[in-house]
Structures are given as structure tokens and as C-alpha cells.
């Protein structure tokens, strides 16, 4: 059953990601991107990371895609729609390098059985405490410093966006 869901959602994630690249209109790309984010969220659920799946839908499919759609609305990209694809040496080299990288990653990721030390988060611990409680216990104890650094980063990002987009007099 899990395998069936995985294959359906994984296939749809791959297809919608391809359509992001091949769609002619930028807005269509953005809408396929939303579908791709939803499929990744379902895959997080299959991996028992429900909290992340929720965040994926709220942050990516909600907030970030809203940013993108607003930007598309403000930029009036109609002229770009008919732009021809330019073939350049650098792009051919880039795609060739990507094919090599693809084969390497598949070889390393699937060719070997990757093992590591087992951590303390067993299924029985999650079953007794609840997953969000376990995550928050770790987030606000072991990961407190990165958490605060990220909040500073987000503040800096928002201030930077306002400064950049402000009209210079």
C-alpha cells in the first residue's frame, strides 16, 4: 500500500517538476510548482514526518508560492513567453555535467547499503510522547542556537527585501 502511494506521488512529483521547466507561461510553471510541493508533502507523510509535511504545505505551497505569483503579477512577463531557447556551449557542458552527476549519485545512493549509528527516536518513544512533543523537546534544547540564528536570518531577509524593493528617490 505504501509502495503504491509512493509510486503514484513520486511519479506525479517528477512529472509536475518537469512541467515547471517545460511550461511556456511563467504562471503555469508556478501552478505546477504548487502541485510538486504538495506531492513532496505527501512523501514526507509517507516517511512519518507529518510535522514537516504541514510546514511544507504552509511555508512552500502557501507563503513562498504566493510571493512568486505576486512577483509574476508585478513583472508583466508577456514578452518573454515567446523567447526562443538559446543553445550555448556553456549550457551543453552544464547538462553533460549533470548527467554525470546523476549517474554518480544513483551509483552511490543505491549501489551501497548505507548504514549509520541508530539514534534515540524509536517508534515506541514517538507512540508514547507524540511526534510534535518529541520534535519540540529537541528543537528547544539541542537546537536552540540554530533556531535563534534562523530567526535573525529571517528578520534580516525581510528588512533586506524592503530595502531592495523601495524606490530610490
Amino acid at each position, binding site marked *: 500500500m505504501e509502495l503504491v502511494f509512493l509510486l503514484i506521488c513520486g511519479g506525479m512529483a517528477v512529472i509536475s517538476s518537469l512541467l515547471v521547466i517545460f511550461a511556456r507561461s511563467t504562471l503555469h510553471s508556478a501552478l505546477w510548482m504548487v502541485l510538486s510541493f504538495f506531492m*513532496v508533502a505527501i512523501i514526507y507523510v509517507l516517511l512519518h514526518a507529518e510535522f514537516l509535511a504541514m510546514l511544507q504545505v504552509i511555508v512552500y505551497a502557501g507563503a513562498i508560492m504566493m510571493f512568486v505569483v505576486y512577483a509574476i503579477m508585478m513583472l508583466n512577463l508577456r514578452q518573454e513567453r515567446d523567447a526562443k531557447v538559446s543553445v550555448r556551449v556553456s549550457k551543453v557542458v552544464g547538462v553533460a555535467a549533470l548527467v554525470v552527476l546523476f549517474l554518480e549519485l544513483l551509483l552511490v545512493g543505491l549501489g551501497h547499503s548505507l548504514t549509520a549509528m541508530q539514534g*534515540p527516536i524509536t517508534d515506541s518513544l514517538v507512540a508514547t510522547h507524540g511526534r510534535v512533543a518529541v520534535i519540540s523537546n529537541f528543537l528547544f534544547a539541542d537546537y536552540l542556537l540554530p533556531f535563534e540564528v534562523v530567526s535573525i536570518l529571517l528578520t534580516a531577509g525581510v528588512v533586506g527585501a524592503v530595502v531592495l524593493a523601495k524606490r530610490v528617490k
Partner: protein
Amino acid sequence: MIENQSIYLALSVVLFIIGAAGAVCRRNAIVVFMCIEIMLGGVGIAFVTFSRANQSLDGIFMVLFIMAVAAAEAAVGLAIFVLMYRKHGTIDLDKFNLLKW
């Protein structure tokens, strides 16, 4: 090892490569930005897979922080696109070579 681990990892590699290929080939800055988000999604699947396989939460926190960085990146990046459009009337990346020497 968990069930279907190799399928999850293969999916993550495929998504990463699709995103990278789009970032190399497309010229529209917003589409390139979305392709980078696809790459981050693929990386996230790999992190969560290993996190699950090793009964650890570290991978989940990595994805959490990746999401926060991606949100900051979206805010600043799209502001830069608006600025580029205002200055040059286009966001075609082939027309921008300010850093080329």
C-alpha cells in the same frame, strides 16, 4: 534501512537533477528560482529518508532550517527580480552579465 529506501533516494536524486537541469537551461529568472526550490525539495526527501532510517531527528531539523533559509531567499530574491525588471525592463538571465569579466 527502511522499506523502499532506495525508491525514496532515487526520487530525491531525480528531483535534484530535474531542478538543476532547469536552473541551467531556463532563462526566466523566476523559473530558475522555482527550479532551485525543486532541488531543495529533493534534498529534503533525502534528509528525511536518512532521518527515518537512522531513528534520528537531525534530518528533520535540517529540512526545517532549509525551509527557513528558502523563505528568506524568496523574499530577497524576488525583491532583486523586481529591481532588475525596474532597471532593465526584463528578467532574462542571458541579458545580465554584470559579474562577468
